[in-house]
């Protein structure tokens, strides 16, 4: 019997009687304070990113020479930057670049990594050997160095930064999916599916894949945290979001030049990165506790 990939049942009374694995996971996740805080902050950032045009008090790119580097005030809660832009509005809009980069690059990494890992693990033989060697090689290049090199050769832009981070994060997904597939392949339910004559693609997609979703979800959550830091790092170096469009990383780059005169410019974007990354890490840790039966 395979796990139905339906959405989790939130009704705990029902979940207690006929324990669906997702219901059990949700119940366990809810018990963990850290994971819930993480989930709440993630939801908050998603709302900020989606509703940015309506929430942000000012235009994030509107400059004003009479408002250059003003400290936080009632009109500008987070202060203004070196050309008089509202820092709060830029932090809110920056959530789009950061969360967008997190989601897009992890989608790229999982989109390529999971099918390749399934293929390597399920098919085995020379396909597995060849893919594994390429994965080894990519993992032998330190993450940030590879992302910088890719972004450099592709040219600096937010889109290219997302591609660079996505490609760089792919081998981890290949390796994880391959390992999980190898373990699932020898389970009885796969044996049974094979015995009744299912074709290989159907076994891989309908029987193996749904059963290896939990570790992939944990990995995805942690990978988003890594991708947000990586996007901020590339933008900080000038290889991501290009000015004047706001991104937390590029805001920190400018802020560093004015650290003595306008420290508030450095505080808020950094706190935003920290909070976003921390909450995805908390969520990932919570998911691991909730979904991994071996982990207590």
């Amino acid at each position, binding site marked *: 019997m395979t796990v139905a990939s339906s959405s989790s049942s939130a009704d705990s009374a029902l979940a207690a009687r006929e324990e669906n694995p997702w219901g059990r996971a949700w119940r366990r996740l809810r018990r963990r304070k850290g994971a819930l805080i993480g989930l709440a902050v993630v939801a908050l950032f998603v709302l900020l990113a989606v509703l940015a045009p309506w929430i942000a008090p000012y235009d994030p790119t509107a400059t004003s020479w009479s408002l250059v580097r003003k400290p936080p005030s009632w009109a500008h809660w987070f202060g203004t930057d070196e050309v008089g832009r509202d820092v709060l509005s830029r932090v809110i809009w920056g959530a789009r670049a950061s969360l967008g980069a997190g989601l897009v690059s992890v989608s790229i990494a999982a989109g390529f990594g999971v099918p390749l890992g399934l293929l390597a693990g399920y098919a085995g033989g020379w396909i597995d050997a060849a893919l594994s*060697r390429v994965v080894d*090689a990519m993992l032998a290049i330190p993450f940030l160095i*590879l992302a910088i090199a890719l972004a450099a050769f592709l040219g600096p832009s937010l889109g290219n930064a997302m591609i660079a981070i996505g490609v760089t994060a792919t081998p981890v997904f290949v390796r994880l999916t391959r390992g999980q597939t190898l373990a699932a392949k020898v389970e009885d339910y796969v044996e049974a599916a094979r015995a009744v004559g299912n074709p290989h693609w159907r076994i891989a997609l309908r029987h193996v894949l749904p059963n290896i979703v939990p570790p992939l979800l944990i990995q995805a959550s942690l990978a988003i945290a890594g991708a947000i830091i990586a996007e901020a*790092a590339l933008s*900080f*170096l000038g290889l991501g979001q290009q000015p004047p469009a706001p991104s937390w990383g590029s805001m920190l780059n400018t802020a560093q030049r004015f650290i*003595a005169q306008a420290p508030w410019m450095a505080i808020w974007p*950094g706190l935003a990165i920290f909070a976003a990354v921390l909450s995805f890490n908390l969520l990932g840790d919570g998911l691991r506790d909730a979904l991994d039966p071996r982990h207590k």
Partner: protein
Amino acid sequence: MLAFLTRRLLQILPTIVIVSMLIFGLQQLLPGDPALIMAGEDRDPAVLEQIREQYHLNDPVPVRYLYWVKGVLHGDLGESMRLKSSVASLVAEKLPVTLQLAAMALLFALGIGIPAGIVSAVKKETAWDYGANVFALWGLSTPNFWLGILMIFLFSVTLGWLPASGYVRLGEDWRQSLATTIMPAFVLGNALAAVLMRHTRGAMLQAMGADYVRTARAKGLQEGRVVLKHALRNAMTPVITLGALEFGTLLSGAVLTEQVFTIPGFGKLIVDAVFNRDYAVVQGVVLVTSTIYILLNLAADIAYMLVNPRLRG
């Protein structure tokens, strides 16, 4: 042992070959004619033809790859177009700076991460454990360039204790050298301290539940002795190998730290090269970092086997 070494070296070979292909392949991502890029402003057809000839640009990609590999094997990593010097000599000049930074960062990470991990395992589920875990989460979630900027604000701008940027070589003036590297090294080691703390905690918890620790306690040994002599010694093996492995990660984290503190090391070299479209330098830095990383991996494996006799054979 010899069989293990041979097998391991044979495994590394294809990895290095594929890494070199990937790094060479990066060039193919560049839009346009590489000769035009290299020539810069000079669009004289004769110059372009000479560049094509010199860099074998008229040959097919696999042939060019072989020329490139041949050069690399002879220690020729190409030429920096901007700095007009060989990439190999640039790397040799900048690498020691980053190695000093990374070594100091590793000391910070070991010095903070391991004691914190031991305390949190011994005092499991107390305020100590809770505090250490909060520290680990903080370390894993703080972007190190932000931490660097905040430290500059506190220690350089506000307190005026340490220089905000620059670098003095260790051989030149060791005090100044430490003053310029202590902040960047702390910033760089921060995340690794968190990783080491988590691993130490896990390994210690496992060791404390093992039979030999129960035996040591049953013999009536003092708890401190049990923890330090029996549990710690066994728990350290995976942690130390991890530390060796993560040294490579420090090299890549140094890119950001060196940028924040304006330290003329390996990381600054690659960032400057990126902005000057000095692609040979970018490739050279990636190649050298990866090679160091692969060799560290090998060293960690060998060390792991030396201290764990069960794996021999």
